[in-house]
């Protein structure tokens, strides 16, 4: 049931907390009312008495009563989130924004590209693909981070490399003894994506600079502008297109995004800033 008061959070219990990297944790959350979301939509997480922040769930959208979010410690609210313990009470609002058009992806070839903390929303998308396994022509996954230590869900990713319905390649900017995949920036592992680019879809999620160069590369490869999906990170407060903080050109990141087709935003200045 959507709440009449669009600003109040739904009471939520922290079930579990898993450290992913030294400054990233995944929280399992159970709201008292289920929050069914579409993969790619985001929620606002409240730490009582501290504040609120937007996060894209990293869990299976088909599970509505428990939501997982993967959160990097970058500011005041996220620092508090990192101090939470199982059993603590937080708040959730949402889901907000537009998800990925999964129906449109059916029967097609898709490459999913993640960088840095951008893996979180993409994990949720990959779960959707796994849940709908067989309904897509082919799925490629390409992931990159600075070093092997920065990888989120490393064990899961290693599992994915073994799946027959998925073609996976991983890269780091700087290799080390713990790394047996590729070395180089993300665009360098895209050449091995063997598909009909003009008909395919690309989903990109990561730091702005990574998205910028990846998009450039995808366009050179022949992907259509409206088949490239980008996750735009903007300052958000309300999450519902009212507070004005997240404007991108004639859109609001919260309401019309956070996932945008490249052709929708390409003419706006400032998109990579």
């Amino acid at each position: 049931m959507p709440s009449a008061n669009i600003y109040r959070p739904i009471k939520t219990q922290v079930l579990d907390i898993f450290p992913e990297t030294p400054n990233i944790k995944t929280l399992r959350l159970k709201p008292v009312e289920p929050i069914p979301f579409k993969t790619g939509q985001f929620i606002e997480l409240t730490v009582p008495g501290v504040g609120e922040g937007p996060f894209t769930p990293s869990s299976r959208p088909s599970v509505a009563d428990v939501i997982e979010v993967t959160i990097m410690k970058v500011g005041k609210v996220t620092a508090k989130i990192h101090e939470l313990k199982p059993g603590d009470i937080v708040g959730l609002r949402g889901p907000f924004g537009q998800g990925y058009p999964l129906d449109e992806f059916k029967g097609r070839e898709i490459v999913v590209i993640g960088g840095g903390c951008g893996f979180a929303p993409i994990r949720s998308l990959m779960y959707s693909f796994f849940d709908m396994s067989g309904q897509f022509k082919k799925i490629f996954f390409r992931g990159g981070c600075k070093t092997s230590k920065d990888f989120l869900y490393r064990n899961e990713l290693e599992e994915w490399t073994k799946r027959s319905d998925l073609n996976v390649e991983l890269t780091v900017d700087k290799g080390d003894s713990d790394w047996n995949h590729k070395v180089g920036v993300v665009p360098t592992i895209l050449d091995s994506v063997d598909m009909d680019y003009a008909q395919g879809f690309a989903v990109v999620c990561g730091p702005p600079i990574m998205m910028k160069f990846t998009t450039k590369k995808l366009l050179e490869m022949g992907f259509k502008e409206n088949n490239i999906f980008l996750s735009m990170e903007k300052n958000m407060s309300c999450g519902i297109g009212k507070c004005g903080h997240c404007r991108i050109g004639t859109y609001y990141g919260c309401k019309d995004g956070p996932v945008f087709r490249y052709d929708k935003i390409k003419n706006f200045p400032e998109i990579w800033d």
Partner: protein
Amino acid sequence: MEKSLFLNKHNLQPFLSGIAADYAVYVPVRKGKHRFFKKYTGTTDEVVIGEVRPFEPLKAFFSRAKEIVAKGFEDTIPHATDKPFAIVGVKACDLKGFKVQDFVFKDQGFKDPFYIKNREENLIIGADCTCAIDTCYCLALGVKPYPQEDFDINLSQIEEGFVVKVGSSKGEAVVKKNASLFEEASEGQLMEKENQRARVHLEVEENIKKNNVPSQELFGGIIERNYKSEIWADEAKTCVECGACNTICPTCHCFLLFDQRDEKQMARFRIWDSCMIKEFARVAGGANPRPKLWMRLRNRFEKKFDFFPKVSNVYACTGCGRCITACPAKIDIRKVLRRLVNNA
């Protein structure tokens, strides 16, 4: 044609007192050079129904500068239990602000229950401007200096009192309740009202001519065309990032949700925010798409003269001139618009 009513000036006080039974009545009161909305105290001695718009924008009666929007996890609408507001003497430029505020909070996407409640319950008694001040340029934005829509009742001040027009069923009910105070307006009174409107219209026209303010017909593409122009940096030179231009503006709607620092008693406030402030668009990770003041000044104009016309077919400026008076840096929106329009 519907009949126009007349309210004798001696009946203003009983009329306002009548309204005060059901509403918290606010009236414009003159103080020095400016007019301010003040709570009606039972006397009309200092009340100025005519003249021009008050110092503060009307929007404050519809979303407060700081108000509580959530308490704990309760799905309730925390609200002052007070009576709704009756705002008296509202000018046409402020009413145009609704074109923007309604779009944001009421007509599109998620509905804001606080705004909608105020919009439904508040009573708006508009009034014709009876003069213009130097900063008035409403006509350039297609706004006439007298209310034409979005009021419950409108008062056109003339010598002996007010020609009254009812604009909604809510207004109708209020007039009916106080029916004994009104009489039918005479031909002469109606003529007096029209003459006055024409006179003030002319005053604003002359203002616009004198200050060389471009008309909105020339605004198409001014932001895109001037995106990389030097004008922004040049105009922003003196800006001190106070945000007054935003808070004073009847169309600016941006806010911040802010949680009270108390883990026992969770309370969420909504406070007006300003896009001129550096942190406005900065993300938690630190990246800021608009680190420079001139980029934020450009953003303010982009929102008003590019975003809103594209998403809602309205320029988010009413020509009220408040930001000109409020800006400590003397940044004059009329001059900025002129430079943008002229820089072909």
